[in-house]
């Protein structure tokens, strides 16, 4: 029973990180219909940026977060401007282009920094644990969970309460008409892509004390995050959050019942089945077909 | 026995009753026009018959077969063809290829595997002649003008050889001459095809319709010949307001 409780907690913290990654993906897909396969590499860049800030400037993971967000957002912004923007009319090709971009980023890091894994220290002030009975919760993981809740809430407020959010939703609904009313769709797209990339960067920073930082770390994560987006139902923030929790927890629990790898395989298979029977996700946006 | 029998047909979209208790028959060889204000449920009725939308209640019998729960392609195989409001031809395929796809009397995979992509034959040539595209067989459909695209789609429906053809605003965007020509083709079609046409152009309706059904708020408001409809008080109210 203790094991199960601790796994549920571990699953929750993994789900939180997955949620931040998936949120960025979902925003980018929802806004411009781009499947961003370079998203995993944005996570990786976030992790390396954190590592660089810690090794060279001595910044802690938490202090580095805003800087990492900005840095990765800028990378995303540039990529959107230079490459993705030219492919909006060809959705299937954006998959390919972003996949290629992912390879380039990965290889650039491998050549520039090296393929061996880097280690990032977690923040000292979050180093302890909270113990409730047999349940041991590390402060850092609790912090990650709360931060992800804040990010989701913040994003929701950004989408629903700000002028940018209103413009964004207008562009999603109908790009042509929005442009007639003076919304610069291109600018909205660039900023959205940058924001999504920045979120991936934050996820990368948060993940550093928990996982080892290597150039290929993003590949597995991007597949998981995509499944979260699809399972959650496109265009549904609640769905994305629920799916992240579900997948995080099921993975964690499966890994006690069987083992890590088989657990992951079972989850992937389960998701493929789920998509078969609910192709529009668990929480489809309710629109007339 | 009518070719198509629609009974108590209804569909609900998230609380909105788009079609609510429609009843009508269509006889073999008849041209039935559906009229009504925007949102009356005309296109939805066509969608329900061809299978684009699944009904939430009621029955549709086509040539003695209950079809309301069948998948689209099964209904197409029974002989129901559909022309959409937006011209939907395959822009990347040539005119001849479009026609070949439409000629689907044997839609099975085995037949497709053992047949060349395009067979030039008498039937295809006649159809292309009828719609004036005879010399454009090799042109990609994406390079056709708007009018030609409409013709191509009509040609495809003829090639498909459906017993019942559902047309959604076939003359939208056509010039007066083109509309006249379409009307003539429709009249000649009704020898072996039954047509249900959604149309706003009243002069066109006057020319082609054998019978008219006026819809309002998802239900049948009036039914009859053009003269009967024009004299109907309920129709006047629905169109002109109180």
């Amino acid at each position: 029973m203790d094991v199960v409780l601790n796994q549920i907690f571990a699953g929750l913290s993994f789900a939180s990180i997955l949620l931040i990654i998936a949120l960025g993906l979902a925003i980018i897909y929802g806004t411009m219909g781009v499947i961003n396969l370079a998203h995993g590499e944005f996570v990786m860049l976030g992790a390396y940026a954190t590592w660089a800030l810690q090794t060279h400037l001595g910044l802690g993971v938490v202090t580095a977060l805003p800087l990492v967000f900005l840095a990765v957002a800028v990378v995303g912004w540039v990529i959107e401007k230079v490459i993705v923007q030219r492919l909006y009319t060809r959705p299937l090709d954006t998959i390919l282009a972003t996949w290629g971009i992912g390879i380039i980023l990965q290889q650039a890091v491998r050549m520039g920094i090296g393929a061996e894994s880097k280690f990032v220290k977690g923040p000292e002030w979050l180093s302890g644990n909270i113990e409730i009975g047999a349940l041991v919760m590390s402060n850092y993981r609790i912090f990650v969970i709360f931060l992800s809740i804040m990010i989701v809430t913040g994003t929701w407020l950004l989408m629903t309460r700000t002028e940018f959010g209103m413009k964004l939703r207008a562009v999603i609904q109908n790009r042509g008409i929005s442009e007639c009313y003076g919304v610069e769709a291109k600018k909205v797209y660039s900023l959205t892509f940058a924001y999504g990339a920045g979120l991936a960067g934050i996820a990368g920073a948060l993940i550093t004390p928990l996982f080892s930082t290597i150039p290929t770390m993003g590949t597995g994560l991007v597949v998981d995050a995509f499944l979260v987006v699809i399972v959650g139902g496109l265009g549904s923030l609640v769905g994305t959050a629920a799916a992240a929790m579900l997948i995080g927890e099921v993975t964690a629990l499966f890994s006690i019942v069987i083992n890590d790898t088989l657990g992951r395989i079972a989850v992937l298979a389960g998701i493929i089945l789920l998509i078969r029977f609910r192709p529009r996700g668990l929480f489809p946006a309710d629109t007339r077909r | 026995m009518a070719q198509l029998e629609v009974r108590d047909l209804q569909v609900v979209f998230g609380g909105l009753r788009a079609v609510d208790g429609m009843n009508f028959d269509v006889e073999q060889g008849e041209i039935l026009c559906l009229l009504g204000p925007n949102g009356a449920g005309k296109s939805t009725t066509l969608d329900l018959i061809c299978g684009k939308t699944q009904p939430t209640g009621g029955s549709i019998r086509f040539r003695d077969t209950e079809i309301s729960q069948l998948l689209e392609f099964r209904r197409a195989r029974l002989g129901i063809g559909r022309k959409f409001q937006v011209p939907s031809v395959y822009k990347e395929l040539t005119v001849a290829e479009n026609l070949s796809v439409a000629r689907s009397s044997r839609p099975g995979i085995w037949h497709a595997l053992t047949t060349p992509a395009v067979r030039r034959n008498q039937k295809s040539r006649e159809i292309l002649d009828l719609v004036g595209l005879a010399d454009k067989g090799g042109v990609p459909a994406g390079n056709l003008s708007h009018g030609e695209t409409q013709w191509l789609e009509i040609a495809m429906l003829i090639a498909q050889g459906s017993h019942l053809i559902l047309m959604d605003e076939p003359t939208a965007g056509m010039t007066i001459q083109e509309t006249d020509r379409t009307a003539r083709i429709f009249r000649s079609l009704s020898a072996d095809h039954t047509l249900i046409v959604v149309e706003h152009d009243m002069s066109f309706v006057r020319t082609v319709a054998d019978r008219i059904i006026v819809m309002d708020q998802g239900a049948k408001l009036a039914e009859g010949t053009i003269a009967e409809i024009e004299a109907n008080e309920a129709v006047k109210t629905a169109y002109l307001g109180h």
Partner: protein
Amino acid sequence: MNSKLSYDIIGLGLFGAVILFGVPAFFSYDGFELNTFARYLSLAIVSMALALSWGTAGLLNLGQAATFGMGSYAMAMHLKLKASGDNLPDFMGWNNVEALPALWVPFNSLTFTLLAGLLIPAAVGGLIATFMFRARIAGVFVAVITLAFLVAFQLLVIEQQGFTGGQNGLTGLAQLELFGWTVDIYATSFYYLVGGCLMAALIFGLYLTHSKFGLVLRAIREDAERTRYFGYNVANYQTLIFCISAGLAGLAGMLYALVLEFASPTYMSVSFSLAIVIWCAVGGRESVLAAAMGAILVNLAEGRLSDVFVEGWHMMLGVLFVAVVMFMPRGIYGVIVDAGRALRRRGGSEEFAETPSFDTPLNTKQES
């Protein structure tokens, strides 16, 4: 006979002549060079297989490497059993597997192996396809689901060490004996075996694309919904092309395992799957012939350049790929076709109207 078909036949003839006569003569029948080239030819098969599902039907299968890997493992399992004689394959002993697993037993038979290498990938491809296409999943979702399948499958193969040799794959294989002929992979005859398989696959692929089956698939690629109203069972068409594509990938995998003399889980990696997509895109996904040539060209370049730029090669490949997607979305094939059209138009010939399917970009309406 339309002119597109005649161009394809001429192209196939030229390609066949170069592969079967030109290349062996160029390398003066050198066994090692031809072995390397045979590797490229086997990869050309998996690339043209992807062109069938992706280029013709618009179904981007990012999991092509999984079915490729299945083929290679089928072949390697047979050869491993042959090499082990009456003993258990060595790695099974290291993993405390006591008896030959039931999964392995039928691979003692060559006939079974050859059939399994084609049919198991085809069946698996068909299963996934039925799942997806009955649910009317299309566009980017096909890409994501096949990618997820690939990741899961590779994990499974690595995890089941006792059955698959895990991370190391299957090594120490015997030579294949094909109806009394011992296949020496450094012999010219082996090169012709692979070349013959590629030519057969290409002829089959060209036949499919020029049949009404291929036409209906192109119609489905452009507008699946519309095609249903003509009475075509779209899911069946998509499933069959997925099956065929997976079966051909299995064939390529069998040959690849022969050439390299081992099977490895890296054949099923995401990066290998990406490589297949790159070859296909560079050559031109609309044409099976162009896709095959894309695989050969990129691998030739890799063979020459990766020695010079050991680290930089992957970077160059990534840049090349992004550039192709952005500026030559129809690959080398598209460039050649456009150039040909421009020439003929300048010549004032009317004939270009006969080859119109070259004209429009492929991507106007792939996803809905």
